[in-house]
Every structure is written in C-alpha cells, then in structure tokens.
C-alpha cells in the first residue's frame, strides 16, 4: 500500500472518530460557576414574574414599611430585625429561629432569604447545575416548618398543627397552599410570590363568618373561624380584629358612632390585664348585644387592622382606621 493511501486512510479514520465522538459522546454542559448573590435584584434577570410579584409583596416591604418601623421605633428594637431582614432560612436551619442580617436590609424578606442554601446554591423545585443560581430540589420549601423560623414567634405554625389541615389526607394544606397558590390554579405555572396575608382583605374575609340573631330580647352575634389555617388573627401581636355595632341609620341620615363589642387579639407582654382572644380554627365566639338601643334594626361589623391603636381610644373610628371584614344587619 502506498504511503499516501496510509495517510489518507488515517485522516479518514480520524475524521470518522471525531464524528462519532461529536455525535455520541457529547460532553456535559458545565455547571455554572458558583456565584455570590449580594442582592435579590440579581434574580430578576431570569425570574421576572416571581420578582415582580415579590416586589409588591409585604415580604419585600418588611424593612421599608412605615408600620413596623413605627412599632419597632425604627428598628431600635433590634429583635424585630431578625424576621424583617433575616439571614437565609436554609443557612440557619429549619426549625431554628431566624438570625438577623446586617446587609441588604432594604430588600426585606427577599429571594435570598428563602432560597439560598448553605452550600451557595438555590432551593427550587428541580435540580439543575446549569443555570447561574444552580437550583437544587428542596421539598422543604413547601413545608410549614419552612415558614416557622419567622412566623412561629407566636405559635402560628403550632396553631396550624392543631387544625385538620395539618392531617395527612385529602384535606391537607400547608401555608403556601393559601398564601402562595399556584398561578391560575395551574402547578405548571409555578407559585404566586405575592404572598397574600393580613394585608389582603379578600384572604382575611375568607377566614371568618359573621352571623347574628335575636334571642330573648338580645342580639347574639357569632363569629366563626371557618377558613384560616390558624388562629384569627395570628402572628404579629399588633394585629387586631374588632367587632362593633350601631343602630342602622335611616337612608340619608347620619349614622351614630360605632359601639365596640369585642376585640380579637394577642396582646403585647407588657399589656397587663389583657388576655389572648385569638379565635382558633373551627371555633365560634358568641357575643351579646344587650342594649335598649339595639331594639331596632342594627348593623354589626367586624373590622381588621394591623396596628392595635386608635387615634382616639375613647371614640374609635373603625371605618376610618380599619378595614371592613364582614357586616350583617339584624332586623327587629
């Protein structure tokens, strides 16, 4: 055989070998280099929908919202920082109370706080080393224990554990089933990161029913926790839900002032003499209106507010300072 043929043969074989390798032995896509995330804005680039939802959520405003700033005296009460600017939950550990962080506090409870893992990756629904954030499947994201490090300061997760929602079976629901539902009800569309809670009045309304009846010369008002997977209200001691009534004004007439009946709230530890009146799931509270002025048609209303104080405690103005949850009229 001539040398030329040998060389040509070798070249052909090499080309065949290369072709075979290219076709059948594809090198794996290299994982993304480890990236240090210093701001949740870095997540926006890829996760635009979730970021946009989060950006208007109360998690995003946990640090900048004037209300907790006022209640904590501008975070002079440094214990408030633990939950309002937490270190990543996976780094502290599920079941452990969160730790405060000193950086990017304005981002509040941000992407990094919930998704960053101790190994530098990001918790997600799948494991994929290719994207820059190197998501790793973490089923803990959907467990109530994941929310507990911040939201169990006052027993909200324990309250949930006492409900039927915590029992295995068709009725099982965790925190995110109500607070981060699938977008349009479709699991393939991912979860809504708006994280509706006590600022979402539709959600608050879904928690309670208000009924009233006349009985033996009095009006008996019933409030039942029908839909919250925990007490009503829950979590922050600053939250309060107040029951008021007043005679129903004739059309065009100025209504009388609201008269306070009952408050649902877990008081601050220094509020001497006040009891925890949160309403547990499935429980009904009856309150009587025993007042001659209630002989005619009255209206009874349940209001909700995120701070417990009234501008004028002697003459509270629920319509001006709180949100209406439920209202009923009771005929004579």
């Amino acid at each position, binding site marked *: *055989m001539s040398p030329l*043929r*040998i060389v040509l*043969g*070798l070249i*052909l*074989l*090499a080309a*065949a*070998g*290369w072709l*075979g*390798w290219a076709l059948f*032995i594809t*090198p*794996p896509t*290299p*994982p993304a*280099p*480890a*990236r*240090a995330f*210093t*701001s949740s804005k870095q997540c926006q680039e890829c996760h635009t929908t979730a970021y946009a939802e989060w950006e208007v959520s109360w998690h995003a405003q946990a*640090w*900048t919202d*004037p209300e907790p700033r006022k209640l904590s005296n*501008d*975070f002079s009460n*440094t*214990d408030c920082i633990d939950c309002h600017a937490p*270190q990543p939950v996976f*780094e*502290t550990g599920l079941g*452990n*109370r969160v*730790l405060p*962080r*000193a*950086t*990017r*506090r*304005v981002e509040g409870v941000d992407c990094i706080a919930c998704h960053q893992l101790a190994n*530098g990756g990001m918790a997600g629904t799948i494991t994929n*080393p290719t994207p820059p954030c190197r998501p790793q499947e973490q089923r803990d994201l959907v467990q109530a224990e994941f929310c507990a490090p911040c939201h*169990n*300061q006052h027993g909200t997760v324990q309250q949930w554990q006492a409900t039927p929602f915590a029992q295995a079976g068709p009725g099982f629901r965790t925190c995110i089933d109500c607070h981060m539902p699938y977008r349009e009800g479709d699991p393939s569309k991912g979860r809504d990161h708006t994280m509706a809670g006590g600022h979402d009045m539709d959600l608050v309304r879904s928690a309670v029913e208000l009924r009233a009846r006349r009985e033996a010369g009095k009006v008996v008002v019933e409030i039942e926790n029908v839909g919250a997977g925990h007490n009503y209200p829950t979590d922050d001691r600053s939250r309060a839900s107040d029951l008021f009534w007043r005679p129903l004004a004739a059309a065009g007439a100025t209504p009388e002032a609201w008269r306070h009946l009952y408050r649902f709230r877990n008081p601050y*530890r*220094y509020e*001497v*003499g006040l009891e925890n009146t949160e309403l547990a799931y499935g429980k009904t509270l009856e309150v009587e209106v025993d007042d001659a002025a209630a002989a005619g048609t009255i209206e009874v209303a349940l209001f909700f507010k995120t701070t417990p104080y009234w501008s004028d405690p002697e003459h509270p103005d629920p319509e001006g300072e709180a949100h209406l949850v439920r209202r009923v009229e009771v005929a004579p």
Partner: protein
Amino acid sequence: MKRALALGLLAAGLCATACRREPAQTNATGEAPPPPPTRAVVTQHIQACQALEQPAAPEVPDDIGEHVDGLLSTLAYDHGRLRPLALEELTDLGEAAVATLDARLLDGELDQPLRLAAAEGLAQIGAAGSRAAAEALLACVQSSPTVANKEFWLYQRCALELGRVKQPWVIVRMLQCLKYEVDYDTVLSLVDGVARYGNLGGLEAVFVIERNGAPEVQARAQALVARLVAEFGARDAADLERRWYEGDASLPPPPDDPAYVCEIWRNIDGMKGWELLPVDMARYGLSRCGAVAAAQLAEALSDENLYVRLHSAQTLERMGPRGRVAGPALLSTLDDPQVGPEAALALGSVRYEPAAAELTRRAAGSPSFELQVASVRALGRLAPADLAATMAPCLAEDQPLDLRAAAAGALLTADPGDAKPAVVAAPARLMASLLVSKAIETRTIEDTLGSWLGRRSDAGDAWAAATLEAWLGVPLQPDEARLEARSKLLTERLSAFGA
C-alpha cells in the same frame, strides 16, 4: 490498511478523551476556614450552680405567724428602744420568718406601716444571708409591671431594701426590672439599690427622668445623680457616665460572688430558647453589668448552642468597653460562620484594639459578605492608624452599596473631631447622598452623620458647628422630608468643608 485503521481508532480515542471537558471546580467566594470548636459550656455551669445551691428547708415554729406579727407591730409603730430589739429578734428568727414576712408584705388589707416593716425585716434577714428573703423582695418589685392595682410606694421600698441585703446576685434582676417599669420613683429606687453594689447600669434611666420627669421627680433624680457623683468620686454626671461606660478602673470592682456568677449563667441559659422574652431580658440585664458578666459571656461564646453564642456576642456588643475582657474570645469567634459578624461588631464596641489586624484582613475580603461588612464597621470604632488605606478599596464604585456605606461610616466614626477634610469629606458626601437612597437603610447613616458633626463641633470646627445647628433645625417629621432636607443641606455645605 489495518495499521492505518488502528492508528485512526487510537487518534479518535485520544481526541475524545482530551476534548471531553470536565466540569470546572470553582469557588468564586473563597474557602471558609473551619469554625471554632464548641462544647456544652452552659450545661456544665448550670449543673455546677445547682450543686452549689441546696437550700435547707428552715424549721418553722407553729406560732411563727403570731410571733412575727408582734415584732412587725413593734417595728411599725414603736419609735423607741424596742424597735431595734424587734429587728434583732426578727433577724434571729431568720429563714423561718421569711414566709410570714412575705405574706404580710403582699397583704393588701394590712396597714402601710406594717407592710413597710415587713420589707425592712426581710432586708435584715437577707443581709444575714437568707436568699429566700431577697427573693421575696425581688418578687415584690418584679410584680410591678404585671399587676393592675399598682402599689408603687411598696415597690420603691422593696427596691431600696434590696440594696441593703448584700447579695450581689440580685443586681441582674433589679436591672431587668428597669426595662418595663413605668413609675419614675420606682426606677430611681432601683437605680439607687443597684448602685449600692457598685453597679451604675441604671444611670441612663436617671438621665431620662432628669430630662422628662415632672419637676418634683426631676429634683429627686438630680439629687440621686449628685449623690452618686460624690460617692463614686466623679467630677460630674458626664464624668460618672463615661467612667461607667468605659469600665474605668477608678470605679469599685464588681462583687466576687459565686451566686452572682450563677445568676449570670442562668440568664445565659435563657438565651437558648425560641421565646424572645428570656433572651431579651438576659441581654438587657447582662449588658448593664460589668467585667464579671463579660468574662462569663466570653466563655459562653464557645457553647454548642448557636443562639447562646449569638446572643452572648450581641450582649457584649451592647455592653461596650466594659466588655473588653471578652476580646480574645470574640476574636476566636470570628470564624464562627453565623456568629462571626456579631463577634466582629462586638470587637469594635468593646474597643479591643488587638483585633484590628484580623478585622482588617476580613475587611479586605471574606467568604462571608456579612463578616466583611461587620469588620469594616468594627474598624470604624477601633480607628487603627491605617484605616483610610483599608477603607479605600471598600469605597470603590463597583463595590456593593452596603460595603461602601459601612466604609464611609467607619471613616466618619473614627474621626475624633479633627480628621483632615481630605480623609472625611468624600465619605461624608457619600453618606449624605445615601440619606435619600431607597436601596439602603438610612437610620444608622443619619445617626453616624449627626454624631460626626457633633464631635467636630465639640472639637472647635466652626463649619461643623454651623452645619450641626442647621441639621438640628430640620423638623423631625415627616421622615422622608427630614432626610431629604438633611441630605440637601449637608451636600451643599460640604462644598465649603475644609476650604
């Protein structure tokens, strides 16, 4: 041909092997050093304390109630020579009388003089070594925030008597009573009581009362301050406050008492829990103690429980220079992944200068961004000579905003009042611009700028004095308007700074 085929296959194999790219092993953030070892520090101390405190149940005579009532009556209403005899006899009864005295103390039906006499009796028995007597007086004061029908006159007396029981372990709990006490005179009594043990942890509360109290109670607060200034040999109130804050050697040393140390460990043990109340109370009380508490907290930095370590570091940070003895332990804690940043802040607060080199190393770069920022902040308080050079790279425009703000703040914090404008002008301009930024928290920035202007004004800087006057003249509310106004005025005035 066969040879060609073999060579070709070999070439293909080599090519496939050489061209397959293995995943690159990168670690962009750098390797974290191993965390320091931990052990069951708190558990061991609590066990040791339990072994120490085994109170013997006192033998109580059947007629003790009648006996004590008789003595109380003498104590309350006799003003002659029978009074000291009654007191002596009560002291001799000792522990056996405590339960009865406690019941009389809290009996709302009894006349006031009898209840005050019960407090005095408990103090005498306490001074003779009865822990139960001291506990009874403490329980009386501690009940103040939690009862609806308050008897401030009684709590004040109990607080004063606690200062006479000569049992230093009561210090921490008396200080903790200050946190929720709303009655100014009871506060003054508590401060007076702890001061008898050489603890001035309540001074700041007295200064608040001096400023905000009604005229009569302001006068009592001023009298207390004057007395304490004289007793502790200070020049004036400011000097007394400075000596206490810095743990000045001229002040009496803290009591050396095993029961006091055990009380400190009981509080540290409370830092483990999920509930924040015991954590909060422990930090509040211990941060107002001195070197004794700092020494125990230093040891607690090695505890196996993360929250004990973290809250111990936080308590030391709140203690300030009195906690300097914990410096070496805090330095060893810098590599604790979750406590390191708090330890760094505490090193700055306790003014442990030997930590400067390590903090500088971490300020230059750290696997933990939190630790890097905390180290920068701590260096501002230590003010090493090379601070400006260390901060320069942190101020670069491409650095995260938190780091730049921390570096600028550190340079201003380190300025004793006479730093050259070339060093502080640019950081001040950056901080002024950040006052209106939505991307960073502004409270500490505003506080840092205000303190900086104050120090330069006190040092005789006319520019700072004029700027501070304008700064303080800005209405405090609403927040956004105040921050905008302060940002604008400072930015404008900085153009003339150093000119």
